[in-house]
Structures are given as structure tokens and as C-alpha cells.
């Protein structure tokens, strides 16, 4: 046994990465990626719609293939790794979790907005009862003070969660503000702590390292950095960095690099990069999953995606409110046409 500190890596290429492909993964792609990640020694592999189980909708975009088919494909080839799913209470339900457990999911990530963890009590309970490992994600963590995060961490601990994740959904945290949140949790809870980063400000790896230095032991990452907004912490990069820093992840560095280059990159419709819109998300603190929705609405209604984001920020939108993007774009387009006021049906 090595005496190195173990860092648990959850690869979310087939979940958060799904945002970058507008949820168009096929069972064949899932099979290939899972097989390769498993072989590279990744501890946990997540497969779900980008917005979690039950996320295949008009609002968030329909999946090409059902979650059931994708989970089936994943569990048919997975050997050493644990299969994980994501659930956002309010979008998916306990029944979705049960379906996932039936298809071999061993880990459940249950995500709520950073102030709303109390809507997840039943879901955590059901997952635990089915013998799943539960990771509670506090999304949009930049919107919650360290004190708030400590309070919410205690809540999910009381529900039975095994891990609580500071989840930087907007890629808006800085290394010091990520650290403050991890430190607040460490003082408040006994369960493990982790970090989920987005790269909108090019800080996903730096923030993950800062979190580890502060005591986090779990990290979410995506191969090739695939993911919402400017993408997530790249699995192959964080594996190399943690190795250099003397931590143990169980990941074979050469193999994960090969997976990135040979398996995942060819699937990607375009490289994940920090573009002007996703950079604005990190700068203004906007939910990364809004990226493609804002891009599409901008094109459709002839407005600047950044102007949409600014409006979304003013409305203090949280994760899940993708439906508001088209409305905001419509309103901006109306304004552009210089029609006085909004056109309402009623008089």
C-alpha cells in the first residue's frame, strides 16, 4: 500500500460533458468511453443527461438516446470502476434514481442550488437505502457565503450523504474563494469534501488544487475538459498534476492521455475552449449549462449572447432556469426593434 493521500476522481465526461454535445451521446460512444476510462483506472464514471436523470426535455434538450439505453451500455462494459448518475431534485425524481440503481449505478450525485439543499433529503435517503454512495453537490457555490455552505453541508450530512461538493457551476470561484468554502465545510462536517470546477476563468485545475490543499479529497473532472461552459477540470491534466504533487488517484497517466486523445477528442464536435460567451459566464457568475442555450437564442433572435447573460445575471437565475433564456432573448430583440414596451396579450 502506498502512503500517498488518495484523491477520489469522478469522471463526468458522459454527464457534464454531455452539455457540450447538446446531449447527443450514443450508446456506442458511451460503451467506448466507459471501457477506456475503466481501463485507465478511473474510480467513478458518471453517465446521465447533462441536467441529470429526467433532464431529457424541451427545456434542457432531448437526449439522442434514452438514459436507460446509455446506462445499460455503460454497465455492460464497466469492470473495476463504479457507475455514477446525477439527479437534480425538481427535474428528476426518486423513480429515476431507482431505475438507475437497477441498471447498476453505485454512486448518486444529488445536486441542488447552494441554498436549497433541504429539497434533497428524500433523494439522499432513497439512494442510501439502495446502498448507493451519495455525493451532495451545492451548485452555484459562488453565490453562497462560506457560512451558508457550512450550514448546507451540515444539512446534507444529516441526510446521510457521504460527500459534499463545492460545485462551481459558473466557473466563477477564485482559488482563495474556493479554499474559503472548503475550509468552512471542513470546520462544519465530518463527511468527505470535494470540488467540482468549471474552466470559464481558466481556473478549474488551479481551484481543484487549492481545494485539495485545503482538505478536499474528491474531485469531479471530464476527459478533454469536456463540459458545460468552457468545460470542466480535464481528467488527464488533473491526474498529471496530482501525481506530480504526490497524491494517488489510481489513474494510469499515459492511458488517460490516450483516452483523451484517441477516444474522446474524436467525438467532440469542436474543441472546448474559453470563448467570449463562456468567459463572460465565469466573469459574471452565470450557470455554465446556459452556454449553448444562450448561443442558440442569440442566433435565433439576432442579439448578442453576452447581453442575454447580463440580463440573466440581473434576474439572479439559478441552475435549471434555461426556459428563461429564450424569453430574455425575445425581450432583447423587441427592444432592439425599438418597439416601446413589451407586447403583452392582455390590455
Amino acid at each position: 500500500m502506498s502512503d500517498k493521500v488518495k484523491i477520489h476522481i469522478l469522471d463526468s465526461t458522459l454527464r457534464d460533458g454531455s452539455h457540450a454535445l447538446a446531449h447527443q451521446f450514443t450508446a456506442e460512444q458511451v460503451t467506448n468511453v466507459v471501457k477506456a476510462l475503466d481501463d485507465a483506472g478511473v474510480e467513478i464514471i458518471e453517465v446521465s443527461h447533462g441536467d441529470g436523470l429526467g433532464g431529457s426535455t424541451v427545456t434542457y434538450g432531448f437526449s439522442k438516446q434514452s438514459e436507460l439505453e446509455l446506462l445499460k451500455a455503460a454497465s455492460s462494459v464497466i469492470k473495476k470502476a463504479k457507475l455514477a448518475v446525477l439527479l437534480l431534485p425538481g427535474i428528476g425524481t426518486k423513480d429515476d434514481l431507482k431505475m438507475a440503481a437497477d441498471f447498476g449505478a453505485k454512486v448518486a450525485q444529488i445536486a441542488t442550488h447552494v441554498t436549497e439543499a433541504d429539497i434533497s433529503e428524500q433523494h439522499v435517503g432513497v439512494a442510501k437505502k439502495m446502498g448507493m454512495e451519495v455525493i451532495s453537490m451545492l451548485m452555484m457555490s459562488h453565490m453562497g457565503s462560506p457560512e451558508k455552505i457550512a450550514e448546507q453541508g451540515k444539512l446534507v450530512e444529516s441526510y446521510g450523504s457521504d460527500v459534499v461538493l463545492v460545485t462551481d457551476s459558473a466557473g466563477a470561484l477564485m482559488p482563495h474563494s474556493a479554499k474559503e468554502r472548503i475550509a468552512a465545510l471542513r470546520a462544519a462536517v465530518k463527511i468527505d469534501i470535494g470540488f467540482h470546477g468549471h474552466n470559464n476563468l481558466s481556473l478549474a485545475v488551479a481551484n481543484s488544487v487549492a481545494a485539495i490543499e485545503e482538505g478536499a479529497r474528491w474531485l469531479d473532472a471530464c476527459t478533454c475538459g469536456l463540459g458545460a461552459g468552457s468545460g470542466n477540470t480535464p481528467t488527464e491534466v488533473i491526474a498529471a498534476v496530482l501525481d506530480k504533487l504526490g497524491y494517488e488517484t489510481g489513474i494510469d497517466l499515459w492511458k488517460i492521455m490516450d483516452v483523451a486523445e484517441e477516444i474522446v477528442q474524436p467525438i467532440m464536435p469542436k474543441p472546448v475552449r474559453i470563448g467570449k460567451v463562456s468567459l463572460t459566464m465565469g466573469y459574471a457568475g452565470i450557470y455554465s449549462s446556459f452556454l449553448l442555450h444562450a448561443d442558440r437564442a442569440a442566433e435565433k433572435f439576432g442579439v448578442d449572447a453576452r447581453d442575454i447573460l447580463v440580463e440573466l445575471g440581473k434576474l439572479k437565475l439559478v441552475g435549471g432556469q434555461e426556459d428563461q433564456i429564450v424569453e430574455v432573448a425575445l425581450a432583447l430583440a423587441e427592444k432592439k426593434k425599438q418597439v416601446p414596451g413589451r407586447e403583452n396579450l392582455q390590455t
Partner: protein
Amino acid sequence: MEKVKAAIIGSGNIGTDLLYKLKRSNILEPTIMAGIIPESEGLARARKEGLVTTHEGIEGLLQLADQFDIAFEATTARAHMENAPLLKKANKIAIDLTPAAVGPYVIPLVNLNEHLGEPNVNLVSCGGQATVPFVHAMREVAPVEYAEIVATIASKSAGPGTRQNIDEFTDTTARGLEKIGGAKHGKAIIVLNPAEPPILMRNTIYGIVEETDPEKLLRSIERMLTRIKEYVPGYRLRAKPLIEDVPDGKKKVTLFVEVEGAGDYLPKYAGNLDMMTSAAVKVGDEIGKHLLAGTWKKKDNVEARA
């Protein structure tokens, strides 16, 4: 004119808001409020409005059985499960605002007439009350393949009951979209937003409908809007309905809705709760009209559901 006497069970936020709405009804007259906390603000307000009050819950209420015909249940699902058989035995009509769903789901503008004579009706969910009427409006023009709604409510307006069982909202509302709205498949999403000052309730309603004349859809939607505004004045469309062509010759309808509460007792931002109390009074008024006209036929609940 003679009015139908109504009791309110529950002296919390919902019960108190109901009190003020019922005071304005031309059909119903609130006569009793039953609570369980003697010093509750709701009971004090009810007394001030001239109602008889009891703090002995359902037992206290049933001692006053000659003073009401309809009871509005504004407590909890658990309480209503216990109260429902007692109310039925006392020959009272229950309008249930809790998720207990002892009786059939009712959306006043859509399916109330199917349930005439029911001793107990349930109001689905706030999201259901706010969105099902428009799925029905689409269904009146063309078959609805799929209906989906996103309800966003202020975090502050979601009580502990909703928070502890958020799936109840999604499941019940989705069933409402299908069984009452008439969509082949329904999906409901709820988002809690903690922004300060609290946001007004918003609902986005999507319908995928068979090929049809967009003008017909628009007119049906407008008619429904006019009717819903009669009992929820703060119900608004934030933009013109969006009707787009989608593959297979179908149409995609998108409605952006905002619901501002009347502010009777509940804060105005809690449009979701106002939607429930407004729908409850609307259902009560309709039942009351039938009672006054002698057209209310009682039928056994079990039979009705068979």
C-alpha cells in the same frame, strides 16, 4: 341573496389568505375557521372578520356542523387523510388544497363538471393550476403530443411540505398535464429561486401539437387567458405566445407566464400559493352555485372513481 356557508380548516398562511378571498365571494360566506393553536394570528383575523373560530381542530369544527356546507382543507396531507372521512360522514363537501388527493383532481376551468357531486375534490398543485388550463386550450384545437412545464417559484414561498417532498409536485403536475390537460405525455419541472427581493412565480409552458392553424391556437389561448384572469387577476403572459414549426409537421407552442398574487394575506410574490387559494375559491363558487340551484348531485366517491 342567500350564500353557501364555508369553513376553513387551518389557520396558517393559506387558510388566512382564503379567508379574505372568501369574504369577497358572491356565492360563499366564510363562517368558521378551525385551527389548533388558540393564539394563532389566523384565528384572530378570522374573529375580527366575524367568523366563529375553534382551536380544537376537526372535532371543534364538527361540533358546529350546522354552520357550514363546504370545508376548505388548508392544513397538511396527513391531517386531511384523517379529516376527509369525518367530513364525508358529516355530509360536508371538502375542497382539498393539500397533496392528500383523497378525491379526484380538479382544475376549475377544465374538468369540474366531470366531478359534480363528488364529496371531496383535490386541487392538484400550484403548477398544475397555473399550466393545465393552457394545455387544455391547445388540446381544444389539436391533439397535444407532449406538454412540459417549468415552474419557478421564490424559495421563500415554498413551505416545508413542498421542500420535503418535491417529487410530489413533479409527479402530480405531470399527471395533471396528461389526465386533465389531455397531453399524451407530460413532464413537470420545479425550480426554487432564492433571489432577494423574491421573484414572482413564473411558468413556462411548452406544447408539441399536431399540425394546425396557429391563429386557432392563439385564439384558444387568448380565450383561456381571459377566463383565468377572472379569478387570478395577476396572471399574465410575459410575451406573445411563440408558435414554431418543428419536425413531422408539428407545432411547438411556448408560453411565458408570470403570476402575481393578489396580496390578500400572502405576499404578492407568492403567486404559486395565490394560484391555489384562488382556484380553491373558484371551485367553491362553482360548487356553491350548484348547491343553491339544487343541481348538485351527490355520488359515492368509490363509484365515481371506478
